[in-house]
């Protein structure tokens, strides 16, 4: 018998509908895999055995009545940032100790309405602030991938490191994730998985713990492009509870797969050829362009002149919004409380103990750039630069470019507790150099595994699209996937 945990959503969907397997069998296969592997990978921070089995049994009833939804019986992992009613929701932070919301996020409610099964909550960088999953209160996630002939533990990327490791390590069929500066696409690239970050406004932010509200967007990490299309169809919706949720119908994304890309114009931004980029990344990028060209796409050189200012602008805008969003964690309404000599002392002690170092750093930066006398110099300047970054993309799209191809990350996965990165916060931030522009402009983008480096570690390419044209990205990334093949780690865990 084949290992059920190796099936993609599309494959499992077919077998479930044909009644060759039951949803309970599939869910049990994943729960067993999690129970035996989670200690090694640390992908899950909470496992919902009973709920998963209850949901799977309900799916089996619906399937046998012929009423299954689009994700009927598909076991998913959910990033700890999404509110799940009555279930651990802590954004992998100590400050939300014991928090079990009385409500369900819109994105997860959509998934359950389509029949999906909750396996548990996935590890992440605390409040999604990080690029290595090392800022989690629950400790780092270990990447299922290792370099050839080397058993050194590597990071799974971040902030959606648990999502990436769980999908790549066969601990869920697919996972939800969120992306504020690269938090879906970078971990996907580090684990040989597909990371889809939709247009800002496509998936509701309601019930998702807020980090930087003008940048946050929910998406998925999946085994392949088809699964990404299936997930987005269910996750996306028009939600009256989120005023930035856009009132546009949700298309059948799966239908875009296999459609010709003949005549599609693919932009290659010269500014992404950054100093010190490895030959391997450069070669992979070229290969991606050749694959698209061979399928009939036209490759055009473009310029996005403000690219290098995206990361500095991000490190003003995101912390500023975070400092405001995280003001709510005060030890009064939920989570941790540390007693103090008066109410102010209680706030200060609670927040000192509840937040980790990276979160504190960002709150302080945000508080500083928003404080009297600095607001115009930092925050307003950054928001003006952001207008220019978006205009760069608008100009390229107006000139006829349909999508933009870039590398997803400047390198493959690095080691856990890398000393050089730990010593300099900015070095860690540079991981997001290719992904952060997309959030600043609110665009959709997908990271697709495209090859392995000389050490045998996965590398990804990124396709960036026009607002709400996710279908174009699915079409083009499917072509890359067909050419590049699939990448799976050798099981050691």
């Amino acid at each position: 018998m084949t290992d059920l945990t190796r099936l993609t959503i599309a494959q499992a969907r077919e077998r479930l509908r044909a009644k060759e397997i039951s949803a309970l069998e599939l869910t049990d296969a994943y729960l067993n895999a999690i129970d035996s592997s989670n200690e090694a990978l640390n992908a899950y921070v909470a496992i919902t055995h009973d709920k998963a089995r209850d949901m799977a049994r309900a799916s089996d009833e619906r399937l046998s009545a012929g009423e299954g939804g689009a994700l009927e019986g598909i076991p998913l992992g959910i990033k700890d940032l999404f509110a799940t009613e009555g279930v651990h929701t802590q954004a992998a932070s100590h400050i939300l100790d014991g928090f079990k919301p009385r409500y369900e996020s819109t994105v997860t409610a959509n998934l359950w309405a389509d029949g999906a099964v909750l396996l548990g909550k996935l590890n992440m960088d605390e409040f999604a602030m990080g690029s290595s999953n090392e800022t989690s209160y629950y400790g780092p996630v270990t990447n299922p991938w290792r370099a050839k002939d080397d058993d050194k533990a590597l990071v799974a990327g971040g902030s959606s490191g648990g999502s990436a490791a769980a999908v790549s390590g066969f601990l869920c069929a697919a996972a939800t994730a969120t992306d504020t500066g690269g938090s879906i696409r970078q971990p996907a690239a580090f684990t040989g998985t597909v990371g889809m970050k939709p247009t800002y406004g496509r998936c509701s932010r309601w019930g998702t713990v807020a980090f930087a509200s003008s940048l946050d967007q929910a998406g998925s990490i999946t085994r392949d492009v088809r699964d990404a299309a299936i997930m987005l169809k269910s996750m996306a919706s028009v939600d009256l509870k989120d005023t930035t949720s856009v009132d546009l119908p949700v298309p059948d994304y799966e239908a875009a797969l296999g459609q010709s890309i003949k005549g599609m114009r693919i932009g290659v931004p010269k500014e992404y050829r950054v100093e010190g980029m490895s030959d391997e990344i450069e070669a992979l990028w070229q290969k991606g362009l050749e694959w698209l060209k061979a399928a009939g796409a036209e490759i055009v050189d473009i310029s996005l002149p403000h690219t290098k200012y995206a990361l500095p602008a991000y490190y003003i805008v995101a912390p500023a919004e975070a400092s405001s969003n995280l003001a709510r964690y005060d030890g009064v309404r939920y989570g941790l409380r540390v007693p103090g000599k008066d109410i102010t002392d209680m706030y200060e002690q609670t927040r000192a103990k509840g937040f980790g170092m990276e979160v504190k750093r960002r709150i302080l930066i945000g508080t500083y750039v928003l404080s009297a006398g600095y607001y115009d110099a930092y925050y307003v300047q950054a928001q003006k630069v952001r207008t220019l970054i978006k205009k760069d993309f608008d100009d390229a799209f107006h000139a006829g470019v349909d999508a933009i191809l870039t590398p997803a990350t400047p390198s493959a996965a690095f080691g856990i507790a890398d000393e050089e990165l730990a010593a300099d916060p900015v070095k860690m931030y540079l991981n997001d150099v290719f992904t952060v522009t997309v959030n600043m402009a609110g665009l959709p983008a997908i990271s697709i595994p495209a090859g392995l480096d000389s050490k045998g570690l996965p590398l990804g390419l990124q396709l960036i699209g026009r607002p709400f044209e996710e279908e174009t990205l699915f079409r083009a990334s499917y072509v890359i996937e067909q050419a590049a093949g699939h990448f799976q780690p050798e099981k050691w865990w």
Partner: protein
Amino acid sequence: MSVDTDTVKRVARLARIAVTEEQASQMTGELNVILGFVEHLREVDVAGVEPMTSVIPFEMRKRADGVTDGGIAADVVANAPATEDNFFLVPKVVE
């Protein structure tokens, strides 16, 4: 621009995060690295550029000003560290 340890302590106070002398001095260095990094933004000519307020060119949806939720006081306080009769309990704030 750079910050000194006193500024870090003042900002930490504004953010309601207790910091020790040692932490404040460590953070001063880290924050200055980040502030040095964002300094590049000053090179950009932003004359006549409007600051970004929304990445999507849609007008924000508005709804009628009416009650859409409520009557769930027990749910609201369910996760609080200290409550009594559906009220949040805090240290004494008035004499």
